[in-house]
């Protein structure tokens, strides 16, 4: 799985590459994917094969790690519908594959899930789970839990109705589907549902927290990360922003968007839920990674989940009950004043709420939040969470919302720009117990790549200019860097080859929402292009060009 383990720590126990020798890393081999859209996926290593999923058209390559240069074993082409490109909000990305029981599972942009025989590359099954005609697409990496493939839909900018679906890993048949808006029976809320806070208790809140039938086109998809606690037998995952972005047309808490669920993976039953941003004002999707840790809090070891949230706070929640134990800012925030730990509610700043026909300025963090999809990693050795994120603010004017099925449902004009300091990206090493940053590294562009940390106390990440960097996990000191061909927005992985040697690999290929200006060839004269992200990235086309290449590094 892309997150390395069910707890989503992205921590590798390999220790050949260390802070002392990382400076000697050399390029070992490369592989061109032939695709030049944003490469967000984590390469997956299973035994002696590496599997690489590309952006649309979502090719799956199998590379033979037993041979020098890792030659291609086979390619699987799912041939997704070309029209799916018209319902992908933020470039044509794919975040990777999962392995289970001899098969590789992943999703295609046109809302299908496929199972491919890991040895032969033959398709085992392919299931249509969503409909691009309704604006649904899939970009997330699935997670396989107890023989069920968990997938969710993207389309918070297209007025979809969000869901998480479990497919039988053997057959691809639907096991259960839980919607994130609508009546309790659709959301799979029943007798076991015990949310911690009172505002989350009541019948059919997924209907009554919306005006009229707005819940039917209210967004709340799942396109981020899922974690699993085998002891509690609970899966944890977040839900996306409500639609449209213009908050004035959807008064109410808009449940269960911009929040998260704890569910039983066997039947999908909801056990608890929480909303990071009830009645979300800024496209602050709640889909980021949930890192499951057992941490000492006030003298007790608590089973928690740590979430660097888009709205700007690192949350620590009790993962058994859903209680917010702490929420601390990890960057510059003007939109809220904190989180009320009594009610669990975000304390919003009224004058920063978007209004129809009025330009509201200095909204920080901007729509992509303090941090978007790009996953953090946690080292049990340093007890730090390595958070790749951005430092962006925006001006916004909400507008007229017209729902036309299969077309965007946003109704806001946005113009993003760098936050205080001018650096648009940051890598923050966060101490979740001390509730403060240990150190941070500033980057010119948003750090849109994931991070990985190793037992050798090295943190790897990439920049949108194309630098792949190794930092000392304890001090943040840069140990090594390599310039790849295109900007890096992928998830680096650390693996051991069949001969026992440690490698670090990453996909280079700029794109994603942040890099759409390059991947989509956008015109920088329009500040509102790509939902306003282009205004903050006008100099990216000078810094990098399109690409699609896998790089693997090792010690000499």
């Amino acid at each position: 799985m892309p997150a390395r383990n069910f707890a989503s720590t992205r921590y590798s126990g390999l220790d050949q590459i260390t802070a002392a020798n990382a400076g000697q890393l050399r390029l070992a081999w490369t592989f061109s994917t032939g695709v030049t859209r944003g490469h967000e996926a984590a390469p997956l290593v299973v035994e002696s094969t590496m599997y690489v999923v590309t952006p649309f058209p979502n090719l799956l390559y199998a590379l033979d790690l037993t041979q020098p240069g890792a030659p291609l074993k086979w390619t699987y082409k799912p041939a997704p519908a070309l029209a799916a490109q018209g319902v992908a909000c933020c470039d044509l990305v794919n975040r990777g594959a999962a392995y289970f029981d001899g098969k590789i599972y992943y999703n295609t942009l046109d809302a299908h899930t496929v199972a491919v025989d890991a040895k032969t590359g033959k398709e085992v099954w392919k299931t249509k789970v969503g409909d691009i005609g309704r604006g649904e697409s899939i970009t997330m990496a699935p997670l396989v839990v107890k023989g069920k493939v968990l997938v969710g839909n993207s389309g918070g900018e297209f007025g979809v109705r969000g869901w998480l679906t479990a497919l039988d890993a053997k057959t691809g048949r639907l096991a259960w589907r839980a919607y994130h808006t609508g009546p309790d029976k659709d959301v799979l809320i029943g007798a076991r549902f015990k949310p911690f806070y009172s505002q989350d208790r009541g019948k059919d809140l997924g209907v009554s927290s919306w005006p009229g039938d707005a819940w039917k086109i209210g967004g709340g998809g799942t396109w981020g990360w899922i974690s699993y606690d085998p002891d509690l037998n609970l899966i944890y995952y977040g839900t996306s922003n409500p639609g449209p972005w213009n908050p004035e047309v959807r008064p109410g808490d808009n449940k269960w968007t911009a929040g998260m669920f704890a569910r039983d993976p066997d039947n999908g039953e909801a056990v608890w839920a929480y909303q990071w941003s009830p009645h979300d004002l800024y496209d602050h999707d709640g889909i980021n990674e949930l890192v499951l840790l057992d941490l000492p809090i006030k003298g007790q070891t608590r089973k928690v989940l740590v979430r660097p949230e888009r709205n700007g706070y690192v949350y620590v929640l009790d993962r058994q009950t859903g209680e917010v134990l702490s929420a601390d800012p990890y960057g510059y925030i003007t939109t809220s004043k904190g989180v009320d730990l009594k009610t669990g509610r975000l304390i919003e700043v009224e004058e920063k709420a978007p209004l129809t026909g009025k330009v509201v300025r200095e909204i920080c963090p901007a729509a992509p939040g303090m941090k978007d999809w790009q996953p953090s990693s946690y080292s049990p050795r340093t007890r730090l969470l390595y958070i790749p994120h951005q430092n962006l603010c925006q001006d916004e004017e909400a507008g007229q919302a017209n729902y036309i099925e299969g077309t965007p449902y946003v109704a806001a004009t946005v113009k993003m720009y760098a936050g205080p300091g001018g650096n648009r990206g940051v890598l923050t090493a966060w101490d979740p117990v001390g509730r403060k940053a240990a150190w941070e590294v500033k980057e010119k562009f948003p750090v849109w790549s994931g991070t990985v940390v190793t037992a050798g106390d090295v943190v790897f990440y990439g920049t949108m200019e194309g630098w792949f960097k190794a930092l000392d996990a304890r001090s943040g000191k840069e140990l090594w860097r390599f310039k790849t061909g295109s900007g890096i927005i992928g998830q680096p992985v650390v693996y051991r080859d069949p001969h026992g040697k440690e490698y670090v690999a990453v996909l280079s290929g700029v794109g994603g929402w942040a890099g759409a200006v390059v991947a989509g060839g956008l015109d920088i004269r329009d500040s509102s292009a790509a939902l306003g992200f282009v205004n903050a990235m006008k100099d990216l086309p000078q810094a990098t060009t399109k690409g699609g290449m896998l790089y693997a590094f090792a010690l000499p």
Partner: protein
Amino acid sequence: MPLRYPKRISGGCHPERSEGGETIRARPLFGSFATLRMTSLRLWMLGLALFACKREHRDFYGLPSSAAVTKPPVREVELVPGGVAPADSGPGPYEENAYAVSQGKTLYNQYNCSGCHFQGGGGIGPPLMDADWIYGSRPENIFETITEGRPNGMPAFGGKIVTDQVWQIVAYVRSMSGLLRKDVAPGRDDAMQVRPQEQSTPKARRVQSAVPKSAELP
């Protein structure tokens, strides 16, 4: 079949007005006021009519009926065997009508064109303010793109938007890359300004140059 555009009611007031809109003659505003007291209501009305004639020409009743606009020919290529260059069919039906172009701008936003192409810079769909045209820059090409869709994500809006409005959107889309006269292209925004005005966008005319997304597939 040749393309039949709706009949344009040609403005007869001041045909000498230049394309750039720089030589707009002085309007007899003060003169009209000076004689106001002495003239009869009829004369005053005449003056008003003359004044109105000075104003920008608007074809309120010149809108084409759906039947008047036949399905346009598709011609996306410049290469013609035998070397006979295809005749240019000229401007679209509303390209000299500022009111219609302005309507096109409103419709462009209301039909969610802006959801993908934003204010011309692109995002989900390609930019519309630059010189690159994947499926052709001629009015008929753009008409067909809107009504029939294109394979790489452009939805087919045919049957969903009435033909007149499609032509208004076509005219507005062409104004985004400076293909319309400056005095016809919109000069202001109703919402937060995010791009240079259409009327000050430099003309970027290349019929076709961009690689369609499908050709990028490995």
